[in-house]
């Protein structure tokens, strides 16, 4: 079977599952009737994930629910199989890129381009499989499948089961669209789509205000990045006349790098990077990710650790041709990455919520990936993305298993001593923690060490970047093992009731943990350090596999100057620091557990600052949410009512006033004059009325009187 031509089917399988859930999910999984009385325990359950498992007040679920457990993970499994098939066939091709274009999604008539040539805007519904997207679809479907399986157990007692799996499948669809898209516009579709699913899943427990708040925060903060991203897409289009990756790369090939100053190319690359900081939670847009932990834990594992948040890294790697032309922006990327890595790690020091520690850890690790990309070592960024997907998904799923065991408790201060009670969870999480700390042999070591080496040796790198990365490595080892020691060692600090019910999760949850643990070890061996020359070439397979994706310049930069002795030395140092971090954590949280509180007290304002995440949320809220958005809205709302509409109503009032004046004028002046004249005439004619009476006798009398007067006059004279 030709899987290469069928790559467009890969995203469609999960879409099928999502649509099915959307249409008939409620019938397969009828929701228990919500009477006012029933709402309370159910809500408590939603809050405490599945606090009451042993107490038997779970609603009874329809048997058809099992169908959902088969369909939804099944669709992802089919996608996984198709992905494997396609990647295997891709490996057999000479030209390692295969494009499948279905039809034109957005089309416009021709118009004039920047250089006067006639361009035609078009965006395909098309897919591109090359080594980069190959890696991504394997990660997404593999990790995605096992997280789906895990969710069967984890979400088993929840209402809204169909809704959860529908959203999860929809997410996989969009994520696969994102990584398989052959152009920026379609990538943007996936980009927004995964953001939507993230919003829906963070707000899965929508009764809780904190959950829906976190959902909105995630969506809006991402939107800010998205706006920049889409502006970047327009710039790319203006530059090259196309949005198709292969054509963009070809068009950029002819341009020379912007070595002097900050030009259009740098601006374009920067806009794309702002988009990436939104999705991949980098400074200054990282604030949504820790809050996103309001979602169910499998969601945190899949979306907010393994796949979606790495989309920014993928996009930057995908645009490597552009970035290699804009060295200024590469420096920005590397700096932001390094700063985010160390900043987030510092916050992780003081968090007590197990998932929040992991969230900040994710932010920090994503910073590492951008550090790698920024120094031109794109393959290392993808390599770290690859290994991180395993161990961080495992850490989240493990924490979910812990939370499950603890009856919904997420506060590490109320845990402890779980090592023997939930052994599978413990061992798998220990593997992942060793991996993220960078202990040799585990996956994280290989990728992180390569990042540090590239930061040191790449022409785009610097000693400062390396130093920040190395210190962060120490911090990572410390906070991760702080988490491990607080959770699994020492006395159990939970209350008696919870303690009595601690139990290992069912196999449907522990099997995925085990598989991912294996991945957390093995994944790293695909990219061993070059100094380990004694290993055969297949141990460097990852780099070679991705080589065709990078433009020549970036590829050369990635090689750097290789001095084996130096590499060994740096490697030794970072391993030493990792071990030191673990030992410090052990000393503080196992041997002298009273010490951390004393240190916190002695630290002055530092500890509260860390605990409150450097007050960034408060500052953002004050400035942007309450200030710009709501405050601005309120001011403008009043302006609209008072001034703009006031003007209209004022015009109405003026009209009425004018007509009142005119009416008055008309009544009293214009008509008044008329009536005045009439009155005057009446007044003047008034005396005449005495004469003109109409009585003939009177007239005769007057005539007689007149004649008498006249006659008398003559007689007297």
């Amino acid at each position, binding site marked *: 079977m030709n899987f290469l031509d069928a790559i467009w089917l890969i995203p469609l399988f999960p879409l099928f599952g999502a649509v099915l859930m959307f249409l008939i999910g409620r019938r397969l999984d009828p929701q228990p009737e919500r009477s006012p009385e029933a709402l309370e325990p159910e809500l408590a359950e939603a809050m405490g994930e599945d606090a009451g498992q042993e107490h038997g007040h779970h609603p009874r679920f329809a048997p058809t629910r099992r169908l959902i457990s088969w369909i939804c993970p099944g669709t992802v499994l089919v996608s996984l199989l198709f992905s494997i098939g396609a990647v295997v066939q891709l490996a057999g091709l000479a030209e390692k890129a295969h494009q499948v274009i279905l039809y034109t999604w957005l089309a*416009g008539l021709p118009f004039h381009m920047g250089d006067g040539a006639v361009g035609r805007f078009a965006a395909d519904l098309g897919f591109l499989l090359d080594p980069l997207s190959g890696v991504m679809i394997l990660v997404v479907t593999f990790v995605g499948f096992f997280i789906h399986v895990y969710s069967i157990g984890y979400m088993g007692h929840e209402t809204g089961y169909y809704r959860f799996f529908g959203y999860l499948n929809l997410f996989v669809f969009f994520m696969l669209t994102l990584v398989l898209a052959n152009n920026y516009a379609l990538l943007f579709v996936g980009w927004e789509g995964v953001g939507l699913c993230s919003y829906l899943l963070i707000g899965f427990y929508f009764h809780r205000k904190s959950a829906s708040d976190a959902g909105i925060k995630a*969506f*809006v903060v991402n939107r*800010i990045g998205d706006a920049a991203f889409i502006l970047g897409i*327009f*710039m790319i289009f*203006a*530059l090259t006349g196309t949005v198709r990756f292969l054509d963009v790369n070809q068009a950029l090939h002819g341009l020379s790098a912007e070595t002097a100053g900050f030009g259009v190319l740098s601006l374009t690359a920067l806009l794309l990077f702002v988009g990436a900081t939104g999705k991949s939670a980098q400074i200054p847009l990282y604030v949504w990710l820790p809050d996103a932990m309001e979602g169910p834990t499998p969601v945190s594992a899949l979306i907010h650790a393994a796949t979606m948040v790495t989309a920014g890294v993928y996009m930057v790697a995908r645009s490597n041709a552009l970035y290699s032309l804009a060295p200024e922006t590469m420096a920005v990327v590397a700096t932001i990455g390094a700063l985010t890595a160390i900043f987030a790690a510092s916050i992780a020091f003081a968090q007590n919520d197990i998932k929040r520690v992991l969230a900040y850890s994710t932010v920090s690790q994503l910073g590492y990936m951008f550090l790698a990309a920024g120094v031109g070592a794109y393959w290392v960024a993808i390599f770290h993305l690859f290994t991180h997907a395993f161990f961080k998904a495992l850490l989240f799923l493990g924490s979910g298993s812990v939370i499950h065991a603890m009856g919904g408790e997420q506060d590490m201060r109320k845990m402890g001593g779980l090592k023997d009670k939930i052994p599978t969870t413990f061992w798998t999480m220990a593997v992942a923690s060793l991996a993220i700390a960078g202990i040799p042999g585990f996956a994280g070591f290989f990728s992180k060490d390569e990042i540090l080496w590239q930061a040191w040796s790449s022409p785009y790198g610097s000693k400062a970047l390396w130093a920040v990365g190395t210190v962060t490595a120490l911090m990572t080892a410390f906070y991760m093992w702080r988490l491990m020691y607080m959770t699994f060692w020492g006395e159990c600090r939970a209350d008696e009731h919870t303690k009595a019910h601690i139990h290992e999760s069912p196999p449907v949850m522990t099997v995925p943990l085990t598989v991912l643990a294996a991945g957390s070890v093995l994944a790293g061996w695909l990219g061993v350090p070059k100094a380990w020359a004694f290993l055969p070439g297949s141990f460097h397979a990852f780099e070679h596999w991705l080589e065709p994706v990078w433009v020549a310049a970036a590829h050369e930069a990635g090689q750097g100057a290789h001095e084996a002795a130096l590499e060994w030395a740096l490697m030794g140092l970072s391993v030493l620091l990792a071990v030191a971090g673990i030992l410090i954590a052990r000393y503080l949280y196992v041997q002298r557990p009273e010490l951390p509180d004393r240190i916190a007290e002695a630290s002055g304002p530092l500890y509260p600052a860390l605990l409150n995440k450097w007050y960034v949320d408060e500052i953002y809220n004050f400035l942007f949410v309450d200030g710009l958005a*709501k405050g601005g809205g309120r001011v403008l*709302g009043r302006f609209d009512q008072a001034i703009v509409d006031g003007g209209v109503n004022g015009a109405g009032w003026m009209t009425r006033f004018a007509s009142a004046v005119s009416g008055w004028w008309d009544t009293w002046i214009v008509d008044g004059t008329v009536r005045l004249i009439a009155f005057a005439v009446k007044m003047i004619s008034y005396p005449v009325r005495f004469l003109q009476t109409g009585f003939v006798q009177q007239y005769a009398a007057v005539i007689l009187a007149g004649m008498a007067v006249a006659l008398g006059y003559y007689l007297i004279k």
Partner: protein
Amino acid sequence: MNLLDLILLLPAAGFLAVLLLPRRNPGAARGVALAVSLAVFVLSLALAAPVWKDGSTMQFVTDADWIESPAIRYHVGVDGLGIWLVLLATLLTPVCVLVSWRHIDRRVKEFYAFLLLLEVGLIGVFVALDLFLFYVFWEVSLVPMYFLIGIWGHERRIYAAVKFFLYTMAGSVLMLACIIYLYNRTGTFDYTSLLAMINAGDLILSRPEQLLLFLGFFIAFAIKVPLFPLHTWLPDAHVEAPTAGSIMLASVMLKMGTYGLVRFALPMFPTAAREFAWWIVILAIIGIIYGALVAMVQPNMKKLVAYSSVSHLGFVVLGIFTFTQAGLDGAVYQMLNHGISTGALFLLVGYLYERRHSLEIADFGGVATAAPNLSTVFMITMLASIGLPMLNNFVGEFLVLVGSAQVDFRWTVFAAIGVILSACYMLWLYQRVFFGETPEKVREKVYDLRPREWAAAIPLVALMVWMGTVTKTFLPPVSARNAEILRQTTVNAEFLVEAPPGARGAAAEAVEVADAR
């Protein structure tokens, strides 16, 4: 008499028929209105195919004498610009009949009669090719809407109705004056003859003439759009109007303004249009951001949606005055999108009102628990409205932004801020209405969608997805006509353009576009 005449005649006949029905029997009025509006819709579908094949020329043309002196003609036709707007009007009328089925319980007969008369006016506006006829239809559509708001509206309905009527009237009188001026210059009201004269060089409007005439038309259209700062009649009219009135007003009537800009103001007065473009774009961008910010703090759902319309229509105006193919295509597409998605929003808000008898956001909460299907439909509509890819609004906004980026990248940046804000106010609205605990009153009163309500909502939701994914169904005739309009804007025009619009930093050179003579 061709199909188009029939489509104009049928609702007019329906108007008379409903008026003649006995008052005792409101069911008959509903039935006749539904039958007539559905028949008109089905007939109007037949218009689409020929226009789709050739969108740039007028089809289904009837050109007959109406009044000999002054020479007013009954001249109608439909092309790629008008076709989808006609279909929008004919689709939404039956939807409105369904929506009002129970909601309207007094003076039922008159209500449906006015609804059908409104349909006549709206279709007429989009097909009239005689300026005087256009003006007649423009005013015809005004009257039934005045009564819809004034009779069946909420508490402050009289104020809103009068404001709506007078405000629109004030603009349209200016337009009438300009139409009469053109008649005195040329002796004809006929739009196609006027264009022919302009193209042949027989009619050359000087720059001052163009500026004044353009302003007259523009103010009439801008009030209708409505463009900031002429928008304040809109929130009042929407809040007070019954659901059907809001839907027709937002979805179709506002498009009369933007349609008029594209159809008349641009091709006839290109010099003036280009000269004012900068200022109009600034107003449009202010409208985009301002509308979104003001929408954010509205406590009333309908007011919120009304202000969001101000924001969305800003995109349309921005697209039109980019004078680019992508911008103009996006603008026309966005007119349709706004018609579908904002119409659906008003529809759903109307459903909520029927249940809870309140439009205040604070009276709701937790509706997702009480009415999951209603919540889902609202969610999809909201997502369309905030421009999620694969739903309709995204395509329009995207094309508008592409167009504006070709002219001035700063415009695009500001417009993109509006896209961010739209997510803020819509998601916040959704959270407050649908998420959270379900208060007692909501749980008691808010029930899920009923079959009749589904029937009204489904076509709109289907269109959101269709228009978002398969743009080829709708865009080609629009593009063809817009190309023609763009070409027309270079005739009889004296203006300077920076050509070619350069993002590459190439020194922009001023090019004088040739006078038609």
